[in-house]
């Protein structure tokens, strides 16, 4: 037998509630009970509104660069819903909706983008890691976090989120490869939104699917409609069950779209067609849930209006909380450099000088109030 087939693979795409509002009753059975669907819908609407407000905050100089999540709410939300409350969520920066579902107060995200590290001081019991700015790097932490669970005999898995662009980074490869070869239960959840700033998806992955990235590691790979919360929930739930039971990683590609600019610093009209955006607006994850809820007689215009009012209040309250937090003291950035501040650094903090003559405490005259030093 001089030639033989040594490997075959097949990747499936899952859609349950499609862009035309058609719901596959068989596949969709028991995926999301109606009462939960209402909750998820509310989360998506709230998150979308936050995007709107955040955009304006940036434009009016009250916040720095901000990446809208618009159009991608169903992905991280569906995942957070399908996972256990204490599975690790290891996000990039377009997973607001999932983090809020998990319980992260909105002001953390606002603070982060307002240039304040306290936005990352996420309570441990939420099992969320802070937003990751360097692309592709956080997946390795997810593998390490899940590895720690395995080591301790816990049943906690990790789910890490990243974009299509992130799959081009070497760290993605190493994270997936460690998980696959050391049998670590991580869900690698790619939000394929077709763009990495201005670079189209085909420059990141010219293969027919991003899902097949996982084949390199012998992982089970799935593709789903990322704008279909049912498909996301079912895919992640099945993946989590498998990962938890087998202590194995899984790769999920959720096909979605970035409806907004990359961030507020970007102007997507420079590089992409409005027609493409318009097409994807039809596939909005929120629209189709609203339509389904209406079909199921669970929703109507007055409920919508009430919800709108509610989320507006909540978002504005969050903004108020974020803006109300007292500015950090000017030498605040020293205090968490090390568990114990080295002497030299303490001197820098207390004098706010680096030139050695200025570092002489008695003379510096700028010894800070806060530090006591």
């Amino acid at each position, binding site marked *: 037998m001089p030639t033989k087939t040594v490997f075959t693979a097949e990747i499936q795409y899952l859609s349950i509630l499609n862009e035309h509002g058609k719901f596959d009753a068989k596949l969709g059975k028991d995926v999301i009970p109606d009462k939960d669907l209402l909750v998820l819908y509310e989360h998506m609407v709230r998150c979308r509104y936050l995007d709107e407000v955040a955009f304006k905050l940036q434009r009016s100089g009250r916040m720095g660069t901000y990446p809208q999540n618009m159009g991608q709410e169903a992905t991280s939300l569906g995942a957070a819903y399908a996972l256990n409350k204490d599975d690790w969520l290891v996000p990039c920066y377009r997973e607001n909706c999932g983090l809020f579902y998990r319980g992260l107060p909105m002001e953390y995200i606002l603070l982060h983008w307002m240039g304040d590290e306290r936005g990352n001081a996420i309570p441990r019991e939420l099992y969320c890691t802070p937003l990751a700015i*360097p692309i592709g790097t956080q997946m390795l932490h997810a593998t390490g976090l899940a590895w720690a669970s395995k080591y301790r005999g816990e049943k906690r898995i990790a789910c890490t989120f990243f974009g299509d662009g992130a799959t081009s980074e*070497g760290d993605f490869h190493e994270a997936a490869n460690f998980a696959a070869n050391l049998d670590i239960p991580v869900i690698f959840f790619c939000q394929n939104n077709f763009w990495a700033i201005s670079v189209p998806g085909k420059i990141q992955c010219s293969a027919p699917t991003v899902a097949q990235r996982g084949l390199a590691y012998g992982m089970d790979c799935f593709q789903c409609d990322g704008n279909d919360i049912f498909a996301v929930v079912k895919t992640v739930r099945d993946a989590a069950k498998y990962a938890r039971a087998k202590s194995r990683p899984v790769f999920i590609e959720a096909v979605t779209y970035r409806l907004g600019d990359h961030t507020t610093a970007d102007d997507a009209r420079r590089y992409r067609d409005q027609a493409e955006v318009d097409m994807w607006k039809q596939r909005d994850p929120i629209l189709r849930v609203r339509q389904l809820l209406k079909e199921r007689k669970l929703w109507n215009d007055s409920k919508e209006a009430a919800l709108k009012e509610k989320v507006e209040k909540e978002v504005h309250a969050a903004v108020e909380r974020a803006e109300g937090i007292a500015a950090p003291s000017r030498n605040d*950035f020293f205090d968490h450099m090390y568990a114990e501040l080295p002497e030299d650094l303490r001197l820098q903090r207390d004098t706010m000088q680096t*030139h*050695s*003559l200025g570092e002489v405490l008695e003379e510096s005259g700028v010894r800070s109030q806060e530090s006591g030093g």
Partner: protein
Amino acid sequence: MANLTLVQAINLALVQEMEKDDRVIILGEDVGPNGGVFRVTEGLHKRFGSSRVVDSPLAESGIIGTSIGLAMAGLRPVPEIQFEGFLGPAYDQICSHAARMRTRTRGAFTVPLTIRIPVGGGIHAPELHSDSPEAIYAHTPGLKVVMPSSPYDAKGLLISAIRDPDPVMFFEPKRIYRAFREEVPEDEYTIPIGKARTVCEGDDLTIVSWGASVVQCMQAIEKSGKSIELIDLRTIYPFDMDAIEASVKKTGRCVIVHEAPKTCGFGAEIAARIMEKCFLYLEAPVQRVAGFDTIMPYYKLELEYMPDTARIARAIEDVGAY
């Protein structure tokens, strides 16, 4: 002559070198139709096409590693790393290969490569978008490290860098990308790598600085009312010790200003060299006004981190009074 920002001056240098030499190609994240996130490569994709201005995958090691291959084959790649904070993934290709290829092969292979990198703080950017890692690369033999502080210098230095037969780290201080304009000749010209610029002459004290901090230094000098000589290093490696030595031997006092953390920043090297070369001339210990030995904070506090006019003024005073 045209009155240009630093971004425009660099853009002009790129256009002219690409016109002149079809071995010059540009690659990086978003450098194509988008013209780069700072618009430095604006218009180049349209002008030179997608084989010479290439939107690459999002992978910095890939950008530099393939650029090394391109350069080994005789091209003159000018890759862009989007922010200095994303040099990290490319560190190994830069230091283990680009910097070593010539000596490792005793000249059989060379890497004529210019890596363009926006650098430094002060633009209210997110984490890892505001650092100053020049000392890391100055400590890596085999590289040249350049950081202009004005549009005029930027154009002349970039042309030199692109024509240089060795790898050059070309750091562009993003805080002054558009902060001011300057007359920049439309004709091509070069500024030699390795030569400092005396921004202003003076007798009482020498300030050595580079990049965006040069602007703060000028302000501090103006306010001080003292006779201060300001040396803009322009090239971090190889650095112009002759210029520094001559100045400090004249003034006897020196303050070094940079944004990077103090400890083991390039200011340490200059201070050590000044002691070596000007020991008997020094009337006060050389002082460093630098970033603190902390992580550059998120933007709410970034101005507290960076050496500002007040801190420079204070150092000038302290050294003067010594």
